[in-house]
């Protein structure tokens, strides 16, 4: 197993589209690193750069300590699982599994042994002589996985491998992948656009936007200390609420003043000026009392989505803005109801209105080991 490192990698397409800009990122040995971002963020390109399916415009790629920047994929000794599995339709499952070993001219006996072992571990024994067209989606997924494992590569790359599965199978496979990662102790890079998948799977998560790395951190850190407004908004569901306003300082006390909301916030030495206040829906409390004053908002309930154990409430604020809150199942909240929202002080995030950068830090002392720009 080996680490995969990108060092100051640029990728620009001839048509001018920039897929990666001065990107430095490392998947450490044995780590499962998730690349996440909205579509067009360049996350798939980064994976393809690692695989060697695309060439960098500038920068260096290392696998282990080896500089593989100019090596074609077949010399990088990595395995990749494609979004739609890319099983060779003209070959049986057995042949698919054995393909990489055959190409490397491994001895027959070794191939048989490894294919057998992998098939057994993934429950593919009975399917070995079928063609991919005769398999279900989940079975194909496992063959694709098996094809990667059987070669015992330096690292695994996954390109949205679960996106073609139905919801239940997706969860099962996610668990399976986690288990596999632990068992193999392999370096894995996993691309997804689904932040919840990222949070549940990743040892660390790298968030990309328009070819620029926003933040790399553990799931908790990413959730609690998003490095900027983009990450804050991308991670977590429903997404964080943002209120535009001004940060004012009065001695040691700082205060956020938005259109409808005034609330004290912890001070930072440099802070001041136009900001966004970010609050996760979990940290908005809906009350029906007529409380007023600091930390409260008035609004009218638009839509309520009952989720079983909780309800998601969409509230329209007087200014026309909307806020999303998660409330306990009881009391029942109904559409059209006028409510008061209270902002819990422990869940506040402040971001610079112009750069989007995080400008407050709260009491709990979590310092990101690495972070983006």
């Amino acid at each position, binding site marked *: 197993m080996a680490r995969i490192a990108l060092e100051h990698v640029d990728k620009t397409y001839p048509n001018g589209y920039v897929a990666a800009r001065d990107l430095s990122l490392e998947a450490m040995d044995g780590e499962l690193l998730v690349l996440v971002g909205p579509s067009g963020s360049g996350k798939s390109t980064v994976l393809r750069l690692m695989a*060697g*399916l695309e*060439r960098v415009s500038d920068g260096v790629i290392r696998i282990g300590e080896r500089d593989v920047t100019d090596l*074609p994929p077949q010399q990088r000794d990595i395995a990749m699982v494609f979004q739609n599995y890319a099983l060779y339709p003209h070959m049986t499952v057995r042949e698919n599994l054995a393909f990489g070993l055959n190409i490397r001219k491994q001895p027959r006996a070794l191939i048989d042994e490894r294919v057998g072992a992998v098939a057994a571990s993934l429950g593919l024994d009975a399917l070995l002589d079928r063609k991919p067209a005769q398999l279900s989606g989940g079975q194909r997924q496992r063959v694709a996985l098996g094809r990667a494992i059987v070669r015992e590569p330096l690292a695994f790359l996954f390109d949205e491998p679960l996106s073609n599965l139905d919801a239940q199978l997706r969860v099962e496979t996610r668990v399976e992948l986690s288990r596999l990662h632990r068992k193999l102790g392999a370096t894995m890079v996993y691309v997804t656009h689904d932040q919840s998948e990222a949070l549940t799977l990743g040892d660390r998560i790298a968030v990309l936007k328009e070819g620029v790395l926003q933040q790399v951190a553990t799931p908790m850190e990413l959730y609690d200390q998003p490095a900027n407004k983009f990450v804050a908004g991308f991670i977590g569901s429903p997404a964080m609420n943002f209120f535009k306003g001004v940060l004012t300082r009065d001695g040691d006390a700082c205060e956020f003043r938005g259109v409808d909301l005034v609330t004290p916030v912890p001070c930072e030495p440099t802070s001041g000026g136009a900001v966004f206040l970010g609050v996760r829906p979990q940290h908005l409390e809906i009350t029906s009392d007529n409380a007023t004053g600091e930390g409260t908002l008035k609004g009218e309930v638009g839509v309520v989505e009952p989720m079983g154990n909780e309800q998601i409430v969409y509230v329209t604020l007087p200014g026309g803005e909307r806020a999303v809150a998660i409330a306990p199942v009881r009391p029942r909240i109904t559409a059209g109801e006028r409510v008061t929202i209270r902002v819990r002080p422990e869940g506040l995030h402040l971001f610079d209105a112009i750069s989007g950068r995080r400008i407050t830090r709260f009491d709990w002392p979590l310092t990101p080991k690495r972070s983006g720009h």
Partner: protein
Amino acid sequence: MKKISRLGNEARLGWTLVAPALIVIGLIAIFPLGWTVWESLHLHELRMPWLGQPFIGLANYVEIANDPRFWGALGHTAFFTVVSISLELLIGLFLALAMNRVFRGRGFVRAAVLVPWAIPTVVAALLWRFIFESEGGIANALLVDAHILRQPMVWFIEAATAWVPVILADVWKTTPFVALLLLAGLQNIDLSLYEAAAVDGANAWWQLRHITLPLLKPAILVTLIFRTLDGFRVFDLIYVLTGGGPGTSTEPVALYTFNALLQNLRFGYGSALSVVIFAITFGLALLYVRGLGVRLGGDEA
């Protein structure tokens, strides 16, 4: 989507793989074209070695400009092209709409219309020639039986009637191709548009006018290009059906050129005619592509 290869030698590999095909095409299509132009500037009569092969500048082109048979042939070609393509587009559109529906025997219809397209043009021409023979031709027999004609007529001795089998044969043979191109276009149209229109209460005619035809325009234009260029190249069909007769009143430019080249072995003059045809075809293609803004598929790279 781009792909990697080692050290940027992808370009070299690409050119290497394309080279044989390009060389073949260049050697046997492009190089001869240049040679044609060169020939066209010479007097070269294979039958008359005593004339030599002097360079005569544009004299051949001047002769073409003053050659009524050439202008006649050009007119016949244009007439043939316009008439046959109009019919083919109309019938082809109908067939395409038909084949795009589900009905019993659709597979059969599709296969049946394809057969005329696939057989040699020469055979098609002979079949129609036979049908329209004055003695023993079934067309005469049927028309007389149906009291449309009072007596059998000789189709091939009047320009107006000689065109009938020519156009019919071309329509018969080429409409399937047109229908297929249009069908491909039809199948690119998003079905939900029809569903939406139907829900909105639009009738079939409205759907055809406002959804099918506008969205089919690219396919129609592409078809138009292919068929126009084909029309200007027409040779086999008329060579076999009428031989250009009566007189020369169904003679297209390609047949006239062929006669100049291979019957009379006038290579200089014939080459000049070839160049003119090429120029016309090329001009038409450009006109279509530029003027109508047709995008031909395949250059998505």
